[in-house]
Structure formats: structure tokens, C-alpha cells
């Protein structure tokens, strides 16, 4: 490939491991086909178990919104519109088979996401890490449900990962001039679309904007950091995202007669996360024991509600804007009155974000949907041999082990393995974008975009296993702190895991 005049010489390789020079990395190097094919086969097999089914949770609501949009010509939901738009488009084109078509699109998008993880890992570390990231992404079961269950996470991941890759290329100085400008606008457009898919992606917008201020002003190792350049590029990225979101915000604001940025469910989320009984949809239908398992009594004591919980319920006003305002105001007053309860329950919610459980384990333990009945029993888990014990037990155990391994490797890779400029910051931005979810409702589903990005440092760790770790007291202290956080979280997760296994 002839080098472009807009592509600057890249920095020397990171210290500890990579034998390949990042500047030699191509966007689609050889050896990538096998992991991508593997990803397609794995997702295809699971897709066959999902086709014709109906998954419990938000999927029926998304499908209803998509079908209504296709048939009535107008979007009438309270969530951001992009994921329902995808379903509506599939229903418009394929009719009754629209849901299955949407599952196929999500499957293809999941393979697309695997490819972008390979790009990111190559950029962040080495081609070997890129190939390993492909294999890890292909075989990592906890994220596979988002490749066919009609939830918004799969689409959000497919938009966020290329945005991260573009930003990383600009940070590394590989895209400069007009190409750099186009990359920043493209990244902002993609993250804007992700926000139109899932409201929580606003945290990604903020975190990536901050990361941009720090990282985009240092385009190569040879150049010292220029804050003004970083600010300018971050503002361009944020401006493109804002312009992508703005038409929907205008429409939502016009509907309600008051300023609405994206969705209209913030009040309900605040209520569920602050002044209502503990809720975690990973554990729906499970009877988690209060004692008899390591960490069970600690978990139960942390979640012990205050005696006056009932008086903090709030009335569901018919006006959505007023309802949101009241919900948030009631929740804030509750937090002021019960600060201790709020803080100790956040400790559990952080653990919920880092739980080894996942939507894979959730759907493996759920009974298949019963099409003969109406209501919640018409939805469930996989409707195939996967829910029989010979399959569901080992698959659940493997899924749990995969989360444990990914989080450990990602902690090691992002802290103890030298990554290319900006890459470690990108992982930190992903964590910063995920952590605020512990302030409301925390569960494995909400961490999915950040979890996908963690495959990058995990692959870097795998690629560097034979190399000595980076030195320095700060790095080692940070790594020990990360291990402590994981250990704490997993102690609190033992009781839910045992309850989950008993359900199989």
C-alpha cells in the first residue's frame, strides 16, 4: 500500500512486547479471516436457537415499537429511536419475518464489531494482539446474546467501536489533516448514533470528550502535548455528535413541550436505582439466599432497606416530563435522608457491574417461551437444546469463567502492559463511561459496550504473557487495587451465581 502524505510516521513500538511495528499494521491484515469466520459460525449457531423465539425483558417492547413504527408510520416510544428504527426497517422489508431479519442484522453487526476490536487491538498493541482479540471476541459467550436478542446493546457496540478506532488513529497521529478532521467528525457521528440507540451512551460521549482533550493533542510521541489542539479536536468530535443527536432532541422536546435530550426514562431509572427496593435484571426470577454462601450475608446486610422506604414511593404522574422531574426530586431527597444506605447499596451495584453473571447465563436458565400463553410467559430464554441441562450447565460455567478471565486479563493488559499512546486512556474512558451506571440500576447488560472494549487490553495481555510486566510503583499499586475491586465484587456475586446454577 502506498503511504498517504496525510499519514504521519507512527511511534516506536511499545516497550514490553510487540515485535511488530504499529506503523506496519494494516486495517485488514492477513490472518483475520479465520477469527471472523469463527465469530460468524458461533453467532450463527446461537441465532438458530433464537430464531422464532421471544426473549424476556425489553425485547418485546422494542419489537412492539418497531412493528408499530412500520405499520403506523410514526415512532411512539420513550426510548431513543435508532434500535426501534432498525426493527421497523426490517419489518417493512421482510414483513412477518422482520424480527428474524433484525436478528440476522444484529448477528452481522456483531461480526463487524469483532473486526473493529481486531483493529483496535492492533492499533493499541500489535498485530498478534489484533488476531488474539479476534479469537477472544469470536468465542466470548457473555456478549453473544447481543448478537441476536433484540436489545439495543449490539447496535450501540457496533457504533462505539469504530468511533474508538478512529479516535485512536487520530491520537496516534496516523490520520492527519483533512483525513484527521473527517475521522473526528465520523467518530462524533458514530457516537451520536450510539446515543440515539442507547441513552447511557451519553456517558461515552462525555468520557471520550475528556479523553480527547487529554489524548488528541499529542499526535505522536515526538511531539509534546498541546492542550489547545486536544481541546479543539475534542470540541469538533463533540460538535459532530451533538449535531447527530439534535434533530431527535428537537422532536422529543416538541412532543413534550420541555427540553428532552434523548429518551424519557431517566426519571424511572432514577426511581428504580435510588428509592425503590433493590433491582437487578440479571437476577430476575432468582431467589438469592441471604446466608449459606460466601458473601451472602454481607450482601444482604448491605441491601437492607431503611424502615421508611414505603414513604419514598412517588406517584406516577401522567405527564412524562413532570413525572421525571418528580422522580428525580424524590430520589435526591431520599439520598439526602439516607446517605449511608445510598453509599452501601452502590457498593453492591459496582459489584453488579463486575459480576461474572451475564445475559448469556440469564437466558440459559430461563425456560423457553410458551407461545400458547399471553403475557410474560410468552417470553423466555433459548428455545432449543441449549436449555437442556447437559448443555446449559457447562455453557453457564464457561460463560462465568470467561467473564472472570476477561476482567483479570483486561486489568493486567491495561495497567501492566505498555499500550500505544491513548489506548490505555481509551480503556479508562470506557470504564468511566460504564461506572456511572452503578449510580442507578446496575447489571451485566449495561456494561456490554465497555466489556467489549476490554477485549482489547485482554488481547494485549495475552500477546505479552511471555514478556515482563511494566515496572513502577504506581502501576503495581493500581493493578493491586483493581484486583481488590474484582475480588470484592466476586465475593458478593457468589450467592447470585449459586442461585443461578440451581435454576438450571
Amino acid at each position: 500500500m502506498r503511504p498517504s502524505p496525510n499519514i504521519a510516521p507512527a511511534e516506536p513500538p511499545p516497550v514490553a512486547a510487540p515485535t511488530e511495528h504499529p506503523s506496519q499494521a494494516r486495517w485488514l491484515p492477513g490472518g483475520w479471516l479465520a477469527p471472523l469466520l469463527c465469530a460468524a459460525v458461533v453467532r450463527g449457531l446461537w441465532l438458530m436457537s433464537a430464531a422464532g423465539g421471544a426473549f424476556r425483558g425489553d425485547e418485546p417492547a422494542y419489537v412492539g415499537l418497531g412493528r408499530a413504527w412500520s405499520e403506523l408510520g410514526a415512532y411512539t416510544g420513550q426510548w431513543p429511536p435508532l434500535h426501534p428504527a432498525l426493527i421497523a426497517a426490517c419489518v417493512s422489508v421482510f414483513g412477518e419475518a422482520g424480527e428474524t431479519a433484525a436478528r440476522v442484522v444484529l448477528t452481522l453487526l456483531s461480526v463487524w464489531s469483532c473486526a473493529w476490536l481486531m483493529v483496535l487491538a492492533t492499533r493499541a498493541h500489535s498485530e498478534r494482539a489484533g488476531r488474539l482479540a479476534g479469537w477472544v471476541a469470536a468465542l466470548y459467550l457473555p456478549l453473544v446474546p447481543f448478537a441476536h436478542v433484540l436489545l439495543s446493546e449490539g447496535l450501540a457496540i457496533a457504533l462505539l467501536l469504530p468511533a474508538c478506532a478512529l479516535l485512536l488513529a487520530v491520537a496516534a497521529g496516523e490520520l492527519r489533516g483533512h483525513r484527521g478532521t473527517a475521522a473526528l467528525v465520523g467518530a462524533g457521528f458514530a457516537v451520536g448514533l450510539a446515543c440515539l440507540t442507547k441513552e447511557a451512551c451519553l456517558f461515552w460521549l462525555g468520557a471520550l470528550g475528556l479523553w480527547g482533550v487529554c489524548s488528541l493533542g499529542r499526535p505522536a510521541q515526538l511531539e509534546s502535548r498541546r492542550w489547545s489542539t486536544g481541546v479543539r479536536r475534542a470540541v469538533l468530535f463533540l460538535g459532530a455528535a451533538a449535531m447527530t443527536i439534535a434533530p431527535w432532541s428537537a422532536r422529543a422536546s416538541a412532543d413534550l413541550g420541555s427540553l428532552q435530550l434523548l429518551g424519557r426514562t431517566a426519571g424511572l431509572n432514577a426511581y428504580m436505582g435510588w428509592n425503590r427496593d433493590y433491582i437487578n435484571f440479571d437476577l430476575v426470577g432468582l431467589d438469592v439466599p441471604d446466608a449459606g454462601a460466601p458473601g451472602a450475608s454481607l450482601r444482604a446486610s448491605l441491601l437492607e432497606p431503611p424502615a421508611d422506604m414505603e414513604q419514598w414511593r412517588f406517584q406516577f404522574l401522567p405527564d412524562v416530563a413532570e413525572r421525571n422531574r418528580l422522580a428525580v426530586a424524590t430520589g435526591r431527597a431520599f439520598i439526602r435522608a439516607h446517605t449511608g444506605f445510598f453509599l452501601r447499596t452502590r457498593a453492591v451495584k459496582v459489584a453488579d457491574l463486575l459480576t461474572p453473571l451475564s445475559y448469556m447465563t440469564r437466558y440459559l436458565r430461563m425456560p423457553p417461551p410458551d407461545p400458547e400463553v399471553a403475557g410474560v410467559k410468552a417470553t423466555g430464554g433459548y428455545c432449543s437444546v441449549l436449555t437442556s441441562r447437559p448443555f446449559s450447565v457447562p455453557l453457564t460455567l464457561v460463560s462465568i469463567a470467561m467473564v472472570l478471565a476477561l476482567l483479570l486479563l483486561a486489568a493486567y493488559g491495561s495497567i501492566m502492559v505498555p499500550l500505544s499512546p491513548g489506548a490505555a486512556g481509551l480503556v479508562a474512558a470506557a470504564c468511566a463511561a460504564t461506572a456511572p451506571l452503578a449510580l442507578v440500576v446496575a447489571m451485566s447488560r449495561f456494561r456490554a459496550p465497555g466489556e467489549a472494549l476490554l477485549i482489547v487490553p485482554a488481547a494485549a495481555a495475552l500477546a505479552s504473557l511471555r514478556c515482563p510486566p511494566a515496572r513502577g510503583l504506581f502501576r503495581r499499586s493500581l493493578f493491586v487495587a483493581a484486583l481488590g475491586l474484582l475480588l470484592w465484587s466476586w465475593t458478593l456475586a457468589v450467592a447470585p451465581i449459586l442461585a443461578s446454577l440451581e435454576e438450571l
Partner: protein
Amino acid sequence: MSPEDDPQGQVAPSEPHGEGPVQWLLALGLGAAAAITITLGLSGAPTTEELLERARTPDDPRTQVQAMHALILRGYWEERPLEELTSHLESSSAEVGDFVTRMHGSLLRPR
């Protein structure tokens, strides 16, 4: 960075000429366009009376459904007698009735 700082004598790559002003202009233009779009949407928000009128727009079921959706979000029908809603639905298109039945069936229950 001066050549003294760089033992290999390499010169730091500088930004292409004109990149800064172009990016600032683009960033501020996009930000301003976003702000104007949202402001226009907010300032042009229809009143309840206008929404009721739109909900009866003949031969435009899409506008009717959108207006009905906005009325429901504003809590309009929950504060009205059921008879008023049913009479409104009778004078609206089939799509509006379909929409309310499918998405807001609880509104049609006696209250």
C-alpha cells in the same frame, strides 16, 4: 521540541497548515447548528390545542398518531373522561385507534 531535545535529529511533525482554523470553524458550526435545531424544536412545540387539531388532521394518519402520542406523553387523556377519548378515537383514523389500543391500552379501561 527543538532538535536538541531529539537525539536522533528528527523534527516533530507539525499540524498541516490551516487545520486548526478549519477544525474550529467546523466544530463551532456543528455546535451552533445543534443548538439552533434543538431551540427551534423547543420553541416550536405545539400547544395542547394545536395537538388536538393535528390529531384530527384528515387523510394524514401519521400526523394524527404523532399528535396523539404527544398528547398522551403530556398526560392529556388521563385527565379527561374516558368518553371524551372514545369519542375522539371514533372521529380519528383507524391507525390512531390501533395505536392507542396497542401501545396505551390502559387508557381505554374504565377509570
